[in-house]
């Protein structure tokens, strides 16, 4: 059979259309794929979350145990250049997290207290909504906002979308800047975005997140906020807690106990 160039182009064009059409249908058919649909949001069987007890955390303001444990576990590079920093969990003054939550007349001000910051694993994550490739998604079984570093194209739309500044981009190759390599966890390549994953690799082995385990003050409480019997729910039921920018409707799952 002889095929002219024109026919070949026609056939391959048709194949391409059919292929992409099939993909499109597959996505439309399975509601599970649309992570940001109202049905999926807030109605997950399980939603992992964390309480940060600022009173316990403030006992040692210079403490960086949670940060060090995370950095070590996840091969987080150490950049001197502020612009290139990669952070999964880090500390910022409380006033930067909650700029409108306190009056200026308090005698003991929380304002300057270094407070841990990390991904909020939102019920309705804007980063997931905007990602053009599905490289970040909300995991059905436990509500973690996950990242696929092999699919990310590095467009950084998720960084623009995140209202919490929880995402970092690998501006340069991070590997030379990882001092103490953990062979059990992947390093990343330049050009992709990364963030906290609630230590999904440790949870899979039945362990707590590295930061929670490292905290000697027990200031971090981790668990399923959809389970009324969980420890985190007990604490949430008895204490007044704050969530960062909850008015945006993102449904953050990091609670700050003050």
């Amino acid at each position: 059979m002889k095929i002219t160039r024109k026919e070949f182009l026609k056939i391959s064009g048709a194949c391409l259309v059919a292929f992409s059409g099939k993909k499109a249908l597959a996505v439309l058919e399975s509601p599970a794929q649309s992570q940001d649909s109202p049905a999926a949001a807030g109605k997950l069987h399980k939603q992992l979350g964390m309480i940060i007890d600022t009173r316990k955390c403030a006992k040692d303001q210079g403490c960086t145990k949670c940060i060090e444990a995370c950095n070590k576990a996840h091969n987080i590079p150490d950049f001197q250049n502020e612009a290139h920093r990669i952070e999964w969990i880090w500390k910022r003054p409380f006033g930067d997290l909650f700029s409108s939550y306190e009056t200026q007349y308090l005698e003991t001000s929380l304002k300057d207290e270094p407070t841990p910051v990390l991904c909020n694993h939102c019920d309705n994550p804007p980063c997931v909504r905007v990602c053009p490739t599905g490289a970040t998604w909300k995991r059905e079984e436990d509500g973690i906002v996950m990242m696929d570093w092999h699919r990310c194209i590095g467009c950084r739309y998720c960084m623009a979308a995140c209202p919490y500044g929880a995402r970092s981009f690998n501006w340069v190759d991070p590997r030379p800047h990882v001092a103490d390599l953990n062979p059990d966890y992947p390093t990343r390549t330049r050009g992709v975005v990364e963030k906290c994953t609630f230590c999904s690799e440790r949870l899979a082995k039945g362990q707590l997140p590295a930061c929670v385990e490292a905290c000697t003050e027990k200031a971090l409480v981790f668990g399923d906020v959809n389970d009324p019997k969980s420890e985190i729910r007990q604490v949430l039921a008895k204490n007044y807690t704050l969530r960062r920018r909850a008015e945006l409707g993102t449904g953050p799952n990091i609670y700050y106990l003050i």
Partner: protein
Amino acid sequence: MFMFEKAMVGSRRYWIWVGALLAVIAVAFGFYLHQLSYGLGLTGMSRDVSWGLYIGQFTFLVGVAASAVMVVLPYYLHNHKEFVRMTILGEFLAVSAVTMCMLFIMVDMGKPMRVFNVFLYPQFHSVMFWDMLSLSGYLVLNATITLVTLHAEQQDVSPPHWIKLIILLSIPWAISIHTVTGFLYSGLPGRLAWRTAIMAPRFLASAFAAGPALLILLCFLLRRQTGYDVGKKAINGLAVIVTYAMIINVFFIAMEFFTAMYSRVPGLTEDFEDLYLGTVSHTSLLPWGRTSIVLMAAALVLLLVPRMRRNEKTLAVACALVFSSLWIDKGVCMVVGGFIPSPLGTLTRYVPTLPELAITLGVWAVGALMVTVFYKIALSVEIAKEASYVPAYEFARTAGAVGLQAQAGGAALAPGSGAPGQENGEVSGKGEQEWHQ
């Protein structure tokens, strides 16, 4: 390739210009290869200001691309015959601008080799997916339109009827590309400077001022270099469009300014304080924001006084002011301003680096080269038609020579080109008339 041979014939000046553009592109490509191997850390972008000059240029150029509709719409929907010699220029400008948009997206990507993931794993909830779709669709539409109409013109036949449908489709499509690009920003919950319903309308208004302003400047340049005259009426018509669009654009900015400054909600005022007032922060945007506002005001004065708008010299200045003020407004201030302050309240300075500037200039050079080559082809066809009454089959042979003549002796051709130009407008106008019935 399609009539490409026409771009291979030109005067010494033409080749010097093309050579210079190629040299800029080559240098920029070198810098890009370095960025590709080193990473985007080569740029001035940071954790806090994670989009910069590249995405700014992309946003601005989507507007330039969309603005082709401002010559196509009056011509095809309202039968404004005076735009007959301008439509092809507008459409070619659109093709070049969309290509530049795509290049700016590519150079901004951390992993450009994975770009097809957007189509392999389509995410219908991502505005970026729809933006890619609308941009590539717009490119295909305009490439088809220019190719088919120019080919028909070269053969001296009226274009096929189906192309009218494509042209009509390109009108709402042009609006869509800039609307969707506006949604890229206005749909983000946490960026208060961007989260405004007026974002897409403001984009469109600024686009319909900046794009036609550039087109007017290009028309002046073409007349000087080649003698191809789009006609006084066309320029005046387009100048009125630029004026209205600029007024609406400035009006929209004033609306934003009032809403922010009278309500005094910190998240809203921060952006304006940063860009125009300089009351709180010390980021590098203040001089840019202020320059943009001053240029806009000056442009409005020149455009609003009829005597100045109709005077070609002052109109050229006004168009340059419109274009540069809106380039600053969208290409520099809008995108970067949205990242200041960061979600954690940091005021991070963004200053593009030398490689970043070189790559940006390189992409602009690609656009300039495309416009040069496209206009050369288009004008070869047009001028060949006007300058000689030889039968159609002889055009191919003479077009190149006439094009050369036009290049070398543009001034000599200019005085005579007015009359045959008018004639040509009517001749090809007949074909259009049939379409409208």
